[in-house]
C-alpha cells in the first residue's frame, strides 16, 4: 500500500474505521471542528450527538458493556473534556473499555490559558487507565491504536487521547499496519501460574463449606468465561454468589446461585461468605460494599483469588492462593485440572452445608409487605421481571440508589452483558445515557433504564438524544419523591433528620415525556401497575413510565457500614442490631 498524505482528522477517522469502530458518541466544539468536518465526509462511522458530554461517556459505557467492544467518545477541549471526567472515573472504577478523544487548543497555545483550554491529560490522569497528548501528527495513528489496545486488554478501562487542533489539521503519510500492535512495556498477564492453580484445586477439593464468589471480571473476560464459571458450578455443586457487577455471569435460575452478595445482598450469600471454609473469588475485588468490616470478614476461610490485576489481590483482604490471570484462561485450566484429578468436595459435608444454606434461604431475605393502596417498589420490579423473563433481548441499566439495589435483587439475569449499572463510582445519572448506548448497539432489543426520579433528572436532557435517533428506550422510574438511599441512611444513622433529601418541585414525568415527543405513562396504585408495565413494553417508542411508589420503603436486608456479614438487618420489624459504637462508625463510614 502506498503512503498517502492525509490530515490528522482524516487519519483519525481512518484509524477508527480500521479498528472496526462503527459508532462514536460525541459533541462538537471549536477544537474538534476539523475532526467533525472529516466525519461528515464519510458514511461508515456513525456519530451520535448527545446533549451533554458526560452522557457521551455513559453511552459509550453502555455500548461497551453490552457488546464487549470498546466504546468511543469524541468531545471538544476545555469544558467538553471536563464534563467527561465523571464518566471516565465511572469507567475506571468499573473497568469499562472506553476511548475518549478530546480536542485541545493548538500546541503553541498550550499553557497560555487559551479559550477553552484545560489540562485534560493532568485532570484525567488519576481517573483513566492511561492518557496521551498527541504533539505530532506523525504519532497520531500509533497513539490511537495503542489507546484501543490499552483500553480493551488486561483489566479494561478508559483511555483519553488529547488532540491539539494544529495536530489534526497538519498532514502526514498514513499506512495501515499489517501486524497487530506490540507494546514495549505493557503486556497484561493472561495465564495464571500453573502451580498456584494446582494448589487452588486441592484447596477447593478439600473444602467442607466451599463458596464461589464471582464478579465483573468474569463478564469482562468475555462470554466464554461465564460459561466456564457455570460449568464449574454445575460440576462441583458449590454454592455461588455474584457481586453487583457480576450479575449474569451465572444464570440466576441456576440452582447453585444463592443471590447477590454485599450490603444489600441475600442473607444466604452473606452468611455463606461469613461461614465458608474455602472461598474461590473469581474476578471480584473484595470491595467494601461486599466485605463489610474487613476485620470480621469471613474469618474462618482460606481464600483463592483469581484476578487479572495484581493490585486487586491482597489490597483489602489477604489471599491464601493468589492467581494473577484472566478469569477465562484460569477457569479453563482449573476445570481441566479438577477433572483430571477427579477432584470432588466431600459429599456429606457439602450436603450439610446446603442444608444450612436452605435454612437461610427459608428466611426469604428479599420479602416485603405488599399493600392494596400503594405500589411497593419491589413489587414493581417483580412485575417487570416477570413480564420480561424468557426473552433474550432485554437489557437493563440503572441509576444509583435504592431502585438500583432492588433491581439487583428482583431482576434475574440469565446471561452476561445484559445488566449495566454504576457499581464502583455510584454515578447518579448513569442509567439513561447508558441505555442510549445499549440501544444504539442493539437497535431491536428491549432496553429498560430502572431509575429513581432523583437520579434520572441528572441526565434528563438525553431524552432529546433518544428522540433524535428514535431510540425506543424505556425509563422505568420508581418515583418515591426522595433521594431514597440518602433518606434511608438519614433514618438509620442520623436520627431521621432528613436534610435536603426530599425531592421537591418534581416535573410531571408524563408531560415531560410528551415534551420530548415520547410516551408518558403513570401508575399510582397496585392495580394499575401490570397494565402500565405491559403498555411500556409493547410501545415501540421512547417511554417514561412514572411508577409512583411507597416513599417510606427501605432496602433490606442491610449490613450497615461498619458491621459484619452475620449482623444483617432483615426488615423494619427487626431491631437494627447495631450497638452505639457501630452506629457512630456507620456515621463516619460511607
Amino acid at each position, binding site marked *: 500500500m502506498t503512503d498517502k498524505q492525509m490530515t490528522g482528522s482524516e487519519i483519525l477517522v481512518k484509524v477508527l474505521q480500521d479498528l472496526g469502530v462503527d459508532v462514536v458518541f460525541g459533541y462538537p466544539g471549536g477544537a474538534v471542528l476539523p475532526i467533525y468536518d472529516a466525519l461528515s465526509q464519510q458514511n461508515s462511522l456513525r456519530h451520535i450527538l448527545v446533549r451533554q458530554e458526560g452522557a457521551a461517556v455513559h453511552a459509550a459505557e453502555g455500548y461497551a458493556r453490552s457488546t464487549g467492544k470498546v466504546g468511543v467518545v469524541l468531545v471538544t477541549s476545555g469544558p467538553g473534556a471536563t464534563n467527561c471526567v465523571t464518566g471516565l472515573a465511572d469507567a475506571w472504577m468499573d473497568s469499562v473499555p472506553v476511548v475518549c478523544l478530546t480536542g485541545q487548543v493548538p500546541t503553541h497555545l498550550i499553557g497560555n490559558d487559551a479559550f477553552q483550554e484545560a489540562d485534560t491529560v493532568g485532570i484525567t*490522569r488519576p481517573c483513566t487507565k*492511561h492518557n496521551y*497528548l498527541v504533539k505530532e501528527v506523525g504519532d497520531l495513528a500509533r497513539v490511537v491504536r495503542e489507546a484501543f489496545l490499552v483500553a480493551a486488554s488486561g483489566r479494561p478501562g478508559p483511555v483519553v487521547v488529547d488532540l491539539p487542533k494544529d495536530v489534526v489539521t497538519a498532514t502526514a503519510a498514513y499506512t495501515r499496519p499489517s501486524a497487530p500492535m506490540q507494546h514495549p*512495556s505493557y503486556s497484561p498477564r493472561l495465564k495464571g501460574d500453573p502451580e498456584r492453580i494446582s494448589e487452588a484445586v486441592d484447596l477447593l477439593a478439600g473444602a467442607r463449606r466451599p463458596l464461589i464468589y464471582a464478579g465483573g471480571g468474569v463478564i469482562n473476560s468475555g462470554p466464554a468465561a461465564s460459561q466456564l464459571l457455570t460449568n464449574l458450578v454445575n460440576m462441583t455443586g458449590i454454592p455461588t454468589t455474584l457481586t453487583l457487577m457480576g450479575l449474569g455471569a451465572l444464570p440466576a435460575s441456576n440452582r447453585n446461585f444463592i443471590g447477590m452478595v454485599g450490603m444489600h445482598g441475600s442473607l444466604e450469600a452473606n452468611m455463606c461468605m461469613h461461614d465458608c471454609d474455602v472461598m474461590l473469588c473469581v474476578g471480584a475485588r473484595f470491595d467494601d460494599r461486599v466485605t463489610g*468490616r474487613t476485620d*470480621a470478614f469471613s474469618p474462618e476461610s482460606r481464600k483463592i483469588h483469581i484476578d487479572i*490485576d*495484581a*493490585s486487586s489481590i491482597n*489490597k483489602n483482604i489477604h489471599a491464601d492462593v493468589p492467581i494473577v490471570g484472566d478469569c477465562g484462561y484460569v477457569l479453563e485450566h482449573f476445570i481441566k485440572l479438577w477433572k483430571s484429578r477427579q477432584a470432588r468436595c466431600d459429599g456429606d459435608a457439602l450436603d450439610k452445608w446446603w442444608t444450612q444454606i436452605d435454612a437461610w434461604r427459608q428466611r426469604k431475605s428479599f420479602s416485603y409487605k405488599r399493600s392494596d393502596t400503594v405500589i411497593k417498589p419491589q413489587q414493581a420490579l417483580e412485575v417487570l421481571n416477570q413480564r420480561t423473563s424468557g426473552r433474550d433481548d432485554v437489557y437493563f441499566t440503572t441509576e444509583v440508589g435504592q431502585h438500583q439495589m432492588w433491581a439487583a435483587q428482583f431482576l434475574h439475569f440469565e446471561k452476561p452483558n445484559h445488566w449495566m449499572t454504576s457499581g464502583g463510582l455510584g454515578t447518579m445519572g448513569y442509567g439513561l445515557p447508558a441505555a442510549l448506548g445499549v440501544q444504539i448497539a442493539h437497535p431491536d432489543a428491549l432496553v429498560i433504564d430502572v431509575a429513581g426520579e432523583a437520579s434520572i433528572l441528572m441526565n434528563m436532557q438525553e431524552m432529546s438524544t433518544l428522540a433524535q435517533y428514535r431510540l425506543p428506550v424505556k425509563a422505568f422510574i420508581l418515583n418515591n419523591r426522595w433521594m431514597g438511599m440518602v433518606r434511608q441512611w438519614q433514618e438509620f444513622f442520623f436520627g431521621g433528620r432528613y436534610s435536603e433529601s426530599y425531592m421537591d418541585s418534581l416535573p410531571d414525568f408524563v408531560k415531560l415525556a410528551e415534551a420530548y415527543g415520547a410516551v408518558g405513562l403513570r401508575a399510582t396504585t397496585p392495580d394499575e401497575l401490570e397494565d402500565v408495565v405491559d403498555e411500556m413494553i409493547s410501545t415501540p417508542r421512547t417511554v417514561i413510565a412514572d411508577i409512583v411508589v411507597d416513599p417510606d420503603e427501605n432496602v433490606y436486608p442491610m449490613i450497615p457500614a461498619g458491621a459484619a456479614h452475620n449482623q444483617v438487618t432483615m426488615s423494619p420489624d427487626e431491631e437494627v442490631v447495631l450497638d452505639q459504637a457501630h452506629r457512630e462508625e456507620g456515621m463516619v463510614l460511607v
Partner: protein
Amino acid sequence: MSVAEKKTVSTRKATIAVLVDNEPGVLARVVGLFSGRGYNIDSLTVNEVDESAGLSRITIVTSGSEMVIAQIMAQLQRIVPVHRVCDFVMQGLHVERELALVKVASTGDKRVEALRIADIFRARVVDSTIGSFVFEITGSLEKISAFVDLMRPLGLVDVSRTGVAAISRGPEPI
C-alpha cells in the same frame, strides 16, 4: 473466631526503583499514584539512564506494612509506561547513596570545627568565602542526616539533598 482484635501492623522502609519510558508526564503518573492512594514518599530521585532506549529511572524511598508495599509495587506495575519495578529490600543486597550540598556560614572556632567534622565525614569543600563553606557529601541517608545535624550549631544556613539513588550488588541489573 470472633471479631479480630486490632492488630498492630509493623511497617518497614522500602527503596523502590522504577524503570519508565522517559516521556512527558511519567513522573506525575508515579507521584500522583502515591498522593492519590495515600502512600508516603520519603525520598524521590529521577533521571534519564538510557538515552538510546529513552528510559528513566525513578528511585523512591517509602514506608508501610508489607501489604501496603506489595500494593505500591503492584500499582506501579499497572502504569502503562512502567517497564520494571524493583523493591531492593526484597531483592537482597544493595547500595544506597545520596549526595548533599551543605552551606555553613561561621567564623572563628565554629568555622574550624565545621571543617574538622567535614574531614571526618569525608565531605569536600566545593566553595569557600571568608565567612562560609559549601560542603559536598556523599553517603547513606543516615550519614548525611548526621552530618547536617552536626553542622546546625556551627552555622548551617542551607542544605540541598539529591534523594537516594540505589543499585543492587553483584553483576546483574535490577
